[in-house]
Each structure stands twice: as C-alpha cells, then as structure tokens.
C-alpha cells in the first residue's frame, strides 16, 4: 500500500513535469497549428540559463534555495525571450505554411542542441539542489521525495494561472476564440498575430520553467534533456486532444502514472512502452478526439 502511494505521488510529480512541458506546446498548437519541435530547445535554454545562474552568476555563499528561486525567474524570462524571438524571426514569415514551420523548428532544434554541445560539451553537468528538495517526507508511511511536491505545486499553479488567463482576461478570450475559429477572429478585426507572439512567449516561459525543473529532477543539465522530455510532451498533447488545456492536464497525469506504475510492477522500460501503447489505444478507440487536429 505504501509502495502504491509512493508510486502515485512520484507518478504525479512526473506528470506535473510533463504538464509543464506540454502546456505551452498544446497552447501553441491549438492556436497556431504549429508543431513546435523547438520546444525542446526552449527547455534547454531554460535549464542552461538556470544552471548558469546557480553556478556562475550568483555567489556560492548564497543559499541554494534562494539561488534556485532566482534561477527559476531567469529560466522563465529566458524561455519567454527565446520563444518571442523564434516566433517573430522564424515562424511569422511562414504564416499559413504549417509544414514549413515544422521544418524550421526541426532545423532550429538540431542546430541549438548541436550548439549547446559545442559550447558546454555533451556530458551532463551537475546542478545544485536545495537540501530540503533531496530529502523525503513521510506521508502515510511512504517516504516521498520532497521535490515531487514542488513539481506538483508548480504545475497546479501554472494550470490555474493559465486557466485564469484563458477565462478571465480579454487576451484569453481572443486565444480561446482563435483556437475555435481563427479566420473568424481575424475577420472581426482582432490582431491575431500579436496574440500568436504572446502565446509563443508564454509557451517559451513554461518550457523554460519545465526545462529547469526537469534538470532539478534528474540532478544534471545536458543538451539531450530537452529532446527526451519533448517526446513525452508530444504524446501528452496528442492524448489530451491537441489544444485543450484541461485535456493536456488529464493526459499528463495519466501518462505520468502509467509510466511510473508499469515501470515498477512490470519491468523497467515497460512503463515507457505502455505510454506509447496508451497513445495507440486512444487513437484506435477515440480517433474523433483528434478530429480537430486534422490540419
């Protein structure tokens, strides 16, 4: 029973990370129809920015937790900035050419991973972790690592924040309307392109945050990290119905739980496979869920 509880909480923690990575992806896809392969690069930018802040920018005499807090802010800003630049410089000129947009983000992701490898090397770099986050808390007999609680809290906060943004603000109204019917929103004289840039920046910020927290999870920073997280984020976005935020949240939790439970109760590696199986099942049973995405 304690095993199960531990697995559920760690699965939720993993799902939280997937949600952080997938939420931006899902927003961008829903509104703009861009499958953003550069999202991995945004995450990488966030995690390297955080790593640099924690190890080089701030003095090591500062408390690790304080450094991490600053690093999180830096990662979010860097992620948003990178997202903003990519949208304005690379994506915007290819408006309405979805395949070409995908190709450009593919090129960008290859180039940025290679650049990071050139500058910092392919080997993982250790990332300092606050002592409290590497400890465990006893929860009904199960010793749960504290960092999972942080991930879950951050993901819930982001989810609620994005929901509030989508449902309580003028911008959110435009975004939701754009996901529903972009042409109509344009016809009403609303500048959708500005919204695209904002959504891309929000997605970049979430990705930067996800990248840094994923590095905290694995304890290291490496160029390949973004890519491996990105694939699960893609799967989450597809299962979640592509473009729906609550769907993405549910899918992220499901994927995290399935992966964690299957890895423990079956064999290591089965969890990763069963995630793909889950995807195939969803496609076979509910292909209509993806109908909105028949671009």
């Amino acid at each position: 029973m304690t095993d199960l509880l531990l697995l559920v909480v760690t699965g939720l923690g993993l799902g939280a990370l997937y949600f952080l990575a997938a939420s931006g992806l899902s927003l961008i896809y829903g509104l703009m129809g861009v499958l953003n392969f550069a999202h991995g690069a945004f995450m990488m930018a966030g995690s390297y920015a955080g790593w640099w802040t924690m190890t080089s920018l701030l003095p090591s005499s500062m408390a690790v937790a304080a450094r991490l807090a600053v690093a999180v802010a830096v990662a979010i800003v860097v992620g948003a900035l990178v997202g903003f630049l990519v949208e304005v410089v690379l994506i915007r000129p290819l408006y309405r050419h979805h395949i070409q947009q995908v190709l450009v983000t593919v090129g960008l992701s290859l180039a940025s991973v290679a650049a990071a490898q050139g500058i910092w090397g392919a080997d993982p770099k250790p990332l300092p972790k606050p002592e409290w986050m590497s400890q465990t808390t006893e929860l009904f007999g199960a010793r749960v690592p504290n960092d999972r609680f942080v991930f879950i809290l951050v993901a819930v906060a982001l989810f609620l924040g994005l929901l509030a943004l989508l449902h309580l603000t003028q911008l959110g109204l435009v975004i939701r309307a754009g996901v529903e019917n972009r042409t109509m929103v344009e016809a009403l004289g609303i500048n959708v392109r500005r919204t695209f840039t904002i959504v891309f920046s929000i997605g970049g910020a979430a990705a930067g945050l996800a990248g840094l927290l994923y590095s905290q999870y694995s304890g290291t920073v490496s160029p390949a990290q973004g890519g491996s997280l990105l694939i699960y984020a893609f799967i989450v976005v597809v299962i979640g119905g592509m473009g729906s935020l609550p769907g993405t949240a549910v899918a992220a939790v499901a994927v995290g739980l399935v992966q964690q439970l299957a890895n423990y109760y079956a064999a290591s590696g089965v969890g990763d496979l069963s995630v793909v199986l889950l995807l195939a099942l969803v496609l076979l049973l509910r292909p209509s869920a993806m109908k909105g995405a028949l671009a």
Partner: protein
Amino acid sequence: MSTDWSEDTNEDRVRPGAQGRGSTMSMSSPALATPTDTEPSSGPAPRRAEGRRTRTSGLLKLLPAVVVVAVLAYLPYVPTEVPGLLPGRINGPGSMQLLATCLVMAGIALSYDVIFGRTGLLSFGHALFVAAGSYLLSISLSTWSMPLWASILVALVLTTGLAVVVGAIALRVGGIAFAMVTLAFAQAASIIVLRNPGGVTGGEEGKSLNRQAVPDLLVGVAHAPYRYWLALGFVVVAAIVVTLLVRSRAGHAMAAVRENEGRAAVLGLPVYRVKLLAIVVGAFLGGLGGIVHALVLGGSNPHLTTTEFTLGLLVMVVLGGAGRTWGALLGGFLYHYADARLVEVSGSSLLDSLPDVVRQVLSQPLFILGIFFVVVVYFAPSGIAGLGARLLRKGRAS
C-alpha cells in the same frame, strides 16, 4: 513570400511523368465536375501517341542516370587522391567506406521521400523501418543463426508487416497528429532497442554482424569496394522502384493526395489505401536500406532508431528537394558526407582566428546543417535539385 511557395507547387505538378493525369488534378474548376468532364475528352488515341514520344524522350532522360551510375561504379578503379574532399585515395578503404555509407544514406533518403515528398505525409517514424531492417538482419544472422538469404528475407518480410500495422494505426489521424503518432512509435522502438531485451539488440553498444554468416567478399578492410558496389546497387534498385512507382497509377494517386487530399477523396481515390501503400513501399525500401547499412557497416547501431535519425532524413530530403528522385538522393549523399567531413574542416587552420566559443559551435556538423536547413526552407523551398532545375530552365530559355 506566399507567391513563392505556390509557384513551387505548380512547378511540381507539371513534372513530365504526371502530365496525363496531372491535368485533371491541377484544373481549378470545382472538383465535383472533373471526373465526368475530362475522362472522355482525353481519350485513348492521343494518349498513346503521346506515350511513344515520352518513351524516346524517357530513354534520353535516362542517359544522365546511366552515366552517373557508370562513373560511380568505376570509382574503385581510380587511384587518384582528392586532398581535402576524401580521406586518402579514392579507391582506398577509407574513402570507399565513406562513399558507400553516403550512398546507403542517399537510398534511405529516397525511401523516405516516397512517404514525405511524393505523398505529402509528414512521418517522423521512418527510422523505425530502417532500424527494423538493420536489426532484424543482425539478429537473424547472429541470434537465430540463419543463412544470409533467409535473414534478408525475414528482415524484409517483418519490416513490411510492421509498416502495415504501424501505418494502419497511424493513418487513423492526419496531418500533424500523424507526425506525432509515428514519432511515438519510433520512440517505442528506440526504447526497446536500448533496453536490450534478452540481450538480442545489444543495447547502447549495438549489435555486430556474425562474420561467419556473411560472404567473405563483404567482410574486411580490403573488400571495401565490394561493399561500395553493394551500396550502389541498393541505390539503383531504390531509384528504379521509386521511378516505376511514381509513373504507375498508384504514383499518380499519391501525387493527387499530396496536392489536395480532399479533392482526391471526392474523385473517388481510396486515399487511406494510397497513403498506406506509400508507407509500406517506403518502409520496404527503408528496410532494404537498413539491411545494406548493416552489411556495409558490419552491424546495427542504436543511432538508427533515434528521432535524430528521422529528423536527419527529413533534413536530407528537404535539402535535396522533396518529391524529386535526384533531390532525395543528392540530399542523402551530401548530408551524410557533410556530417562525416565537416568535423575535419573545423580542425583546419581556417577557423583558428575565431574566438573559442564560435569555433566550438562551428565544429558541430549538426549546427551548420541545421542552420543551412533553415536557410533552405526559407529561400530555396524546392531544395538543391529544385534550384538546379530552375537554373537549367533559365539556361535553356536564354
């Protein structure tokens, strides 16, 4: 910018092979009217006369291909050194191995082009089929100790079967969702290979070929030219299959699906089956490429299963020119060549004057290729082959 793109798709439509049926597809009249209207008007008689003309001109068009193959086939007899371009003599083992790998990549890129360039399906799972061919060959040779011919047969049959299953599931969704689903399947294969179930895939180390089971001609440094000829043979086979496919009814249907899927469906084409056929043919050729890859490199490498490999294939095809046989071949060849040789360039004195960080970044072949790829997507969307074709046409016009 937008006019530039549409111009390019028009260019594609008037490719000579697709002309007969292509005229139906490119008509801008409402799709519903086309089948009844055009079928009687393009009767059998004029088509036959046109057919004869295209046959002679087709033979003429074949000439450059024959010359290129002949020159490539003769290379193992050329002892000249090409400093900078190749390691050592052209017929030295190092150059032969490099060229053989480049050729295999060219053929694999062509197999991916059947899916992406010809049918317009953005698949991110092609690595799955190449890796399946490669690993199934290595495993059936070593683990199941089968003879070479049986191993090749097993690898091809199983890869094609895998393509039918994966394609049938993935094609239930379209567009970008299809890309993600194929990506997920390829990722699953990658996980399986790395986990090394029962020790059959060799995990991160990869799986080497059982040398006893392979003919002596394909093993050893001295026999590099034979592996080179094997790779060349694969490219020729792939090019012939793709050319025949593109000229067949199925090929025209693929082009129709690529240009306008909705219209093709309204015209009564079995769109689902056409797309599945493209995936299966592409996977068959890709699996064959994987087999040749394993024979040339003496084993299977987990790199073949990675997303990076599929993305590389996509880059190759777009760089060379999607939907053009020469484009895909050229793209595959040049991409692998650049990937293998750019490292040497970065070590040269050319870059010494640059600051450290810039040099380190430029020493990554994928960085240069990635940036070059973005530039090509923007400024030469029809790739190198498209640029070449445009220059040729300009030359003829003036």
